[in-house]
């Protein structure tokens, strides 16, 4: 349904997007995972016809985002990264406004937004500016859905949102997906990759990898160890100082460790750490997460 070919975009000579191509299938939940500055917002503004690419083209359901922008806007719902509703209008007024702009009414399309809007409807007389972060999000999502779009484009809807609200938001998306809508979403939270059908890992305007999250993990060819000891900060420094080390990064209460050419096994690592006087050492092979792979891809790109 989305077919993007060799998109590039520069701002004052700085490349934001470098020759990006990807396809999204109808009904898919497709995620762009990458940090601030990776180019996600520029890409999404191109997808929604709000920004012109310097080169390349994007088709959505066969319509070109540049030439057929009027049609694109009818079939696309867009939730920008920044809160973009009218703070001094009430919840209901905002929704009514967006419905009117698209030539529809809240009543006509209520069934589409029901699950989302339900949760903020008790506060429909409240000004949008007075809502909590999680509620603003749900209102913005309702507004993006009110014209019954075929494609929903969500730019970092969960950034700065607490872990519980993030989880609830993804559950809402799962519900929406059941109705057949295609969703393209961006996020800096690597753990959210698992919730997408397919993901593109993006950094510095380039796609590092596109696949199902499970495949990205399965196809990763390095052994990742989880390492633990009593003094975690010293442990991190000592692992970094080990000549065989490729990466050593803190992941919650453990350190994820990979070595060059998989030249070591767990026993070698334990021995090295015992020599460094560490105590309560635990070394285990683990299934990597997307964040391990992202770090690896980032570093091999930087070293090129």
């Amino acid at each position, binding site marked *: 349904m989305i077919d993007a070919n060799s998109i590039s975009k520069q701002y004052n000579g700085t490349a934001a997007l470098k020759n990006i191509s990807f396809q999204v299938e109808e009904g898919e939940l497709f995620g762009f995972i990458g*940090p601030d500055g990776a180019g996600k917002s520029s890409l999404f503004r191109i997808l929604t016809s709000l920004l012109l690419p310097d080169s390349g083209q994007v088709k959505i359901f066969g319509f070109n985002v540049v030439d057929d922008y009027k049609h694109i806007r009818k079939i696309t719902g867009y939730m920008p990264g920044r809160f973009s509703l009218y703070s001094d209008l009430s919840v209901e007024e905002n929704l009514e406004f967006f419905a009117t702009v698209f030539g529809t009414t809240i009543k006509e399309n209520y069934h589409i937004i029901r699950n989302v809007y339900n949760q903020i409807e008790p506060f429909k007389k409240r000004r949008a500016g007075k809502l909590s972060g999680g509620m603003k999000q749900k209102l913005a999502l309702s507004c993006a859905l009110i014209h019954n779009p075929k494609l929903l484009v969500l730019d970092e809807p969960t950034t700065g949102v607490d*872990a519980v609200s993030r989880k609830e938001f993804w559950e809402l998306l799962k519900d929406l997906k059941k109705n057949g809508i295609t969703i393209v979403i961006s996020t800096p939270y690597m753990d959210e990759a698992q919730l997408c059908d397919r993901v593109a890992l993006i950094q510095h305007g380039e796609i590092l990898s596109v696949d199902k999250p499970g495949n990205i993990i399965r196809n990763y060819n390095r052994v990742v160890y989880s390492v633990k000891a009593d003094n975690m900060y010293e442990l991190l420094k000592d692992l970094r100082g080990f000549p065989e080390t490729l990466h050593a990064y803190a992941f919650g209460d453990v350190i994820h460790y990979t070595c060059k050419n998989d030249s070591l096994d767990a026993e070698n690592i334990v021995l090295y750490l015992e020599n460094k006087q560490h105590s309560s050492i635990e070394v285990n092979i683990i299934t990597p997460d997307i964040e391990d792979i992202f770090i690896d891809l980032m570093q091999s790109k930087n070293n090129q």
Partner: protein
Amino acid sequence: MKEAEDIPVISVKNMYKKFGNFIANDNLNFHVKKGEIFGFLGANGAGKTTAIKVLCGLSKPTSGTINVAGYDVYTQTEEIKRNIGYMSQKFSLYEDLTVEENFRFFTGIYRVHRKEIKLRMKSSLNEAGLWEFRKRLVSSLPLGWKQKLAFSLATFHKPRIVFLDEPTSGVDPIARRSFWEQIYKATQNGTTVFVTTHYMDEAEYCNRVSVMEQGKIVALDNPSELKKQYNVNNMFDLFLKIVR
């Protein structure tokens, strides 16, 4: 990690903050030790920002006994401000000033003497890996670098406590970790760190964490003790269990 010393630098007793009928902070009781990394967690709207404003001397509590860096939050707010550093994700730097200009501006505000700024700026920027970019506009830096710079600025006047409000939101995974290493280094010199985050893996890097829910602190301990207590494997599950 170095054990925090047992001297409270923040002590909060029976703190209430009300806005009309709304109780934003409902009888908070906790203390933060010298050199500790204290994680202040909670859902959006739980009352974290309200509490931080009180602790920074920017807003007066409705009632309670609160001491920060040895000063009283009702009567000695200027002394508090001089002894703390503050950094937030939303606003921390002037985008249209260079790295160096931001540096001079913020350290000047914190009343660091001009000679000392000159003397220490190079080493401080070097440590953050930013010396060679000192002439660049802040707007042209990646977010991870900005956050490093903001942290250097918030700690340059050697505050006793630094408050970090979601310092790593949106930052890439490597920068996020190198930011935490910067935090560790600061605590080795005895600085106390008071931090909020929505990344639950980062909660593990704290000596102790508190979890707020509707104005109240509902859990407070070190991460491993909390996980044991709630019978969960990680802080994410803990948070879901407590807040949901």
